[in-house]
Every structure is written in C-alpha cells, then in structure tokens.
C-alpha cells in the first residue's frame, strides 16, 4: 500500500516505513538508544529529501525519549539539575544548529554535511564500541577483569562556576555540561538525532556522572531539545512531515517493546558488538557514496523562497 507524503511530496510504501520503524524501534529498545542516527540515513537511502528526513526524524526521537524519560522518572534515576544545565546548552546548540542547517541548505551543501557528519560520528563511535566490546568479550572469556579508569581529578576541576549536583554526587563547573549540551544540541538539529550516543559517553567519561543517572538524565534533556528542534525545523525549513512521522512513531513504539524484551535475553557485550557493526556498515555505505563518481554530476533543485 502506497501513501503520498504531503511534505516530502512523494509516495512511499506504508509497509516499508512501518517495517523500518519497527526494526529501528527494536534496536533502540534493545540498546537503549534513540535510534535517530540509524533512521535518518535509512530515510535518505529511501529517497526522502535529507532536510525532511532530519526534520521528521526529530518527532520520532521526541516520542521514544518521552517513553524513556518517563520510565526513568518512575525509577527516580534523573538528575534534574544536571539535566537543566545540559538543556540550557542544548537549547542554544539547537538554535545555532538550525541556523547552520538553513545556511548550508541555501549554499547547497546540507546533504554533503549531513553525510559527512554521519560518516565521521558513526565510524568513530562504531569503532570505539567495537574495540571496547571485543575487549570485554575477550576479558570475559579469559576471566580477567578489564582495567578500570582511576577516579583522579582532571582538568575539568580547575574550571570556575562550580555547582553542586546532589543526585549525581558531583561538585563541578557548569561549563563542561553546558558545552556538552550545546554540542549535542547542534548535532541534533543537523542530524535529526537525540544525541544520546554522544551525550552518554560524555557524561560518563568527561563529567564522571554515576552510570545509574546517566541514561535517565540524557533522555530528560533529549525530550526538550528535540522538541525544540522539531518545532524549529517545521517553522524555518517546512521540513516536518506529520504523515511520515506518524508512521515512524507507530513502528518505533511497537518495535521498542520487543527490543527491550530481547535485550533481557541476550548478552550485553555481544549486543554492543552488533550495534557497533551496524554503525560501521551505515558509515561505510554513506562514505562510499561520497567518494564514488555519481551517475549524474548535475542535480536539480527547486528554488524555494526561504523565510
């Protein structure tokens, strides 16, 4: 069954979109990630204009992060104060990301930048995850415990504007969380992602937050930053397709349920190696398209007046 997307202005197969939503929802439930960084490239492969893919994907991220944040709220595993500081940075980042997005699309370079950013982040994070999970799998087989990082002070403790975060048992400067939030907010606007895959490692390794509040706090921040990003994409770029978003949300919600259940039965390290492999494959595919000679060097775009 085909459905015509009013904003993307093209017909798509309903079953394909639903199946993609379920598959990505499954993975996101399994790995506890938003799934935006998997869905946006898939939508682009499907022929959805990159701007619409990014803008629409934010609605799916809002839906899945609301579900995640609510679950962590009932478990009381959200550091609201840290979340608010990250959010302050995230709002600023999202706004500058939207402006960057608009400027780049006017210059005709937005598709390239989206692809490049994806290739860089997916390959770096995929490679890091792969190395780490392979090491952990080996360690588990050999019976040795992987070396833990020491809790010694780092350069972050020398920064001013310190604030006490009781829930995270931290007394640190607000500058690093604001910068992390800003960076992730910018990426969120350009990539159509929540940015948990950047924020969670940053919270653990850079801010040294306790792991039990990291995911909940990240979800809390992502809800508001992607909500803002989504509204602004709709407002400045007319790039949110409600029909497509609806299909993605439905598929994602259903898939996530099964993903969560599957994750309980599968070993965590193997799962992470699998996710790493998926990330590397997508980045290879995107990277390949950037370097191979296109079949037609010329492309045509409608000149739409931008506001």
């Amino acid at each position, binding site marked *: 069954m085909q*459905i015509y997307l009013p904003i993307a202005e093209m017909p798509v197969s309903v079953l394909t979109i639903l199946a993609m939503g379920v598959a990505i929802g499954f993975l996101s439930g399994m790995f506890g990630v938003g799934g935006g960084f998997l869905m946006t490239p898939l939508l682009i492969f499907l022929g959805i204009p990159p701007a619409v893919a990014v803008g629409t994907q934010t609605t799916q991220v809002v839906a899945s992060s609301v579900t995640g944040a609510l679950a962590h709220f*009932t478990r009381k595993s959200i550091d609201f104060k840290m979340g608010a500081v990250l959010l302050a940075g995230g709002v600023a980042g999202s706004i500058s990301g939207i402006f960057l997005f608009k400027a780049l699309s006017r210059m005709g370079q937005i598709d390239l930048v989206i692809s490049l950013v994806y290739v860089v982040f997916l390959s770096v994070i995929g490679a890091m995850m792969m190395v780490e999970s392979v090491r952990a799998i080996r360690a588990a087989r050999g019976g040795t415990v992987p070396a833990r990082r020491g809790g010694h002070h780092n350069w972050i403790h020398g920064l001013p504007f310190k604030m006490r975060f009781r829930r995270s048992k931290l007394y640190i400067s607000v500058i690093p969380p604001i910068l992390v939030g800003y960076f992730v907010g910018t990426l969120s606007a350009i990539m159509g992602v929540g940015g948990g895959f950047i924020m969670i490692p940053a919270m653990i390794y850079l801010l040294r937050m306790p792991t039990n509040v990291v995911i909940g706090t990240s979800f809390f921040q992502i809800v508001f930053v992607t909500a803002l990003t989504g509204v602004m994409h709709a*407002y400045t770029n007319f790039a949110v397709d409600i029909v497509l978003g609806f299909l993605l949300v439905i598929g994602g919600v259903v898939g996530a349920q099964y993903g969560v259940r599957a994750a309980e039965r599968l070993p965590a390290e193997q799962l992470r190696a699998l996710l790493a492999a998926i990330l590397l494959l997508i980045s290879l595919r995107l990277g390949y398209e950037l370097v191979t000679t296109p079949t037609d060097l010329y492309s045509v775009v409608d000149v739409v007046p931008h506001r």
Partner: protein
Amino acid sequence: MIALPAYRVALALAFVVLTAGLARADQLVTDLSEHQIAIRSNFTGTQVLLFGAVEARTPGARAINRDIVVVVQGPNAPAMVRRKERVAGIWINHDSVTYPDVPGYYAVASTRPLEVTTTSDILNALRIGIESIDPGVAEARAIDGTEQMLLPEQETAFWKALIRNRQRDRLYVSVPGGVTFLGQTLFRARIDIPANVPVGLYTAKVYLFQDGDVIDTISSPLYIDKRGIERLIYRMAHSDPLLYGLLAVLGAAFAGWLASAVMRRP
C-alpha cells in the same frame, strides 16, 4: 496505472462527436478526460486522456497531411542546477546555474515525430518540444555564491542536465506517435502524470498542423492540486508553521506517553 472511469471517456467522446459536426472551417475540437487532478494520500500518478476532432473545411474531405501536436505544460518556477566536483576525494556541489522560468512539467505528444511535422523555426517560435523550452536568463554562481560568467557551451551542459534530470523523473516527456487518429477526424492522446508532479495550473495545448503550418490551436486548463488531508497538512505546514510544528511535537510526545502508559500495565 489508474483506469479512467468509463463514463468520463464516453462523455468526452460524445462531446467531441456532437460538436465536431457543427464546425464550418477547418478547426479543432478537444476535451480532456479530467480538468482537475486531486493529489490525495493514495496518489501514485495518473493519466489524462485528451480527445479531439478535426473538422475539415469541405465536408467529406479526407484528412491528409495533417498533424496533431499536444503540449501539456505545468506551472513555471525557478530551478537551480548544481554540478558536483571532486574536492579532496569527495564529490561536492560546486558551480550552479539558476533558471528563472522552468516548467515543472512538460509533456509533448504528436502524431509524427516533431522534426517531420514542421520546421525547427516554427517549433521554436511556438515553444513546442522540450528543446524549445525557454527558461529565461540563466544566472551562474560559483561555490562561494559569487556570480560568474560561463561559456555558452558550459551553460548548455547545465541546461541539458536539467532536461535529463526531469526526463529521468518523468516530468519531461516526449512521445512521438503519442497522438493517434481514430478514423478520419477523431484523435486521442494519453498523457502520463507521475506521482511527483508539482501542483498548480497546467495547460493542455493542441496544435493542428497542415503541410507544416499551424492552422488551429486550442488550449484547455488542467488543475492539479492536493486535496483532503494532504492539502490540509501541506497548507498548515506552510501558512501556520509554528502551530504545525508544535502539533507535530506534542503529538509525538503524546504517543511516547501512551506507549509508556501501555507498557506499565502488566
């Protein structure tokens, strides 16, 4: 392919047959199977049938050396063509050329190939054929947005690329032999409208050629627009983008809340 409702075809034929007998001079009578095309959620492209008749000057005279050319043209809009160049191993959009007046859709069908129908001068003057489209004064820009001069052959490469792209998307089509005569006077043409057509006012122009000269033309409008929920969503997204964005995001948040409410149940 969507089958046209039989009654529409019958109506169009009846109209053509009835009106054809009334004409005195050598002239065209035509009608479209549809004057409005609605893009709804199930739209995957459609077909428009054009029916017509040629009434001969002297009753009973045979239609000889007559050609019919049908041109269906969509709304004009500016279009930009970009050329990729390899920079540091990566293909990036480099130079661009913007044309101010490019038809979003252009279909030409004829009884015989255009080049044997008439001269290229006449084709150009009447803007018949994809090669005769006049896109206006081109504006070339370099990658940094500064205006630049292009040699005519360079600019032609951009224009040819635009045509090639639109032909690939089936937005520009040329069907020599796409107009068929049914007997002496009746003719018909089938025009394919793909799913990716721009919305707006289209015109279907029919030219009657005799010995290479135009002896009659007739033009009828064709309106393509989004309808129903598609129209509602599109209009709201463009006229009320803030409200639209808020609704989209709140709807998504509600779906997320619903999912967690359902999940919490045992």
